[in-house]
């Protein structure tokens, strides 16, 4: 169908890029979620006033372009501090914090969605703060937070396309390298787009399904 100069080696090159996309996504979402949960719980526990510095710090990651975050972090660590750190490490670090910033909001929103009356009932039965958190808040908040979290994870996967700026060759960058060499932009871009779409679309659908199902049950 397509008359293309694309070789098996080129396909492998693309596949390696795709692998990098998934690897960075996995690390960022994993670390970011852990940090996000901690930040979110802390932010909720201390209240808006004492939580202000944390909120301000996290808000920065949501208010400036990720591209600039990556460039700045890279410049800061390598030239200002003078560490020898790979672009991969910088990319994972920045994306983790970026994920954590959004995740903290989702977590806080989830906890706030648990009615105070339910929690008071739990405490009045003699449950400790920890028991209340794990047996009451966690399951209820998860229902609220999970669909948003799925959206966040997919968003982070799409945003990994920006780590090219710290010399990490992920899927879109690999595609672009091949475009420059083979001069077949449309065909290559379609392959690349299809990869993102095939991962993102079903998971997004699943998230939407969960959201609907849980809304209907309430």
């Amino acid at each position: 169908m397509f008359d293309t100069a694309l070789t098996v080696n080129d396909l492998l090159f693309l596949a390696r890029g795709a692998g990098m996309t998934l690897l960075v996504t996995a690390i960022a979402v994993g670390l970011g979620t852990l940090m996000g949960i901690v930040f979110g719980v802390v932010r909720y526990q201390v209240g808006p006033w004492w939580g202000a510095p944390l909120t301000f710090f996290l808000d920065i990651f949501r208010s400036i372009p990720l591209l600039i975050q990556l460039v700045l972090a890279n410049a800061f660590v390598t030239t200002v501090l003078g560490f020898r750190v790979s672009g991969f490490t910088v990319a994972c670090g920045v994306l983790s914090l970026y994920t954590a910033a959004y995740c903290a909001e989702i977590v806080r929103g989830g906890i706030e969605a648990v009615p105070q009356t339910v929690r008071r009932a739990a405490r009045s039965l003699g449950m400790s703060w920890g028991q209340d958190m794990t047996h009451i808040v966690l399951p209820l908040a998860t229902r609220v937070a999970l669909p948003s979290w799925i959206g966040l994870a997919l968003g982070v996967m799409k945003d990994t396309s920006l780590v090219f700026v710290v010399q990490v060759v992920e899927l879109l960058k690999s595609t672009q390298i091949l475009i420059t060499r083979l001069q077949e932009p449309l065909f290559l871009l379609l392959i690349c787009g299809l990869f993102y779409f095939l991962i993102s679309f079903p998971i997004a659908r699943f998230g939407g399904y969960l959201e609907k199902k849980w809304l209907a049950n309430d």
Partner: protein
Amino acid sequence: MFNYTFRWNQALKSLPQMLEGALVTMEIAILSMVIGIAIAIVLTLFRLSPLRPLRAVAAVWVEIARNTPALFQIYMVHFGLGSFGIHLTPYLSLLIGIAYNNAGYLTENFRGALTAIPETQTRAARSLGMTSLQAFRHVVMPQMLRIAFLPMTNQMVWAILMTSLGAVVAMNSDLYGVANDLNARTFRTFEIFAIAAVIFYLITKTITISARLLAARLFRY
């Protein structure tokens, strides 16, 4: 370990240039939102239409916008259209790419907002003799835009952040592009991008705060 000397003066000298870039960034974001909202309203109508092909157009648009990176979408506009012989300037490629993305996400927001408006509103409007388009235009849409106002604000912030992606299609007059060019000439990477970051931060904060004030004025009901 800490033997780096900051040279803020040199970077600050380029501040006027960067502020000019910031204007271009805001211009693109605003235009892309205006276009995006207009298209999203049309796509929302498509979604409600009884005609299958129209619903399909809306669905494909929304799903591609939401399930591929924005950077990919800009590439598609610039290089993808290029292979059909349509060569756009970096400015146009970036604008169209962001507008495409905005329209997709906003259509989804509008759909969510629509579910919150009871069917009886349309019914009441129709029983007063309004056509279905009049009922949508005068009764449903204003309520939809109110509910979707906060998501629209978020999308506006996204549009600002997305302008930085213009660098990949050699856009150099927006804030990120200007910073990028300055960096290539002076190598004061940290200082220049730190200033750019502060400007971006101020722009996005101004948007969210003024949106909140605007909402209070606009929606008194």
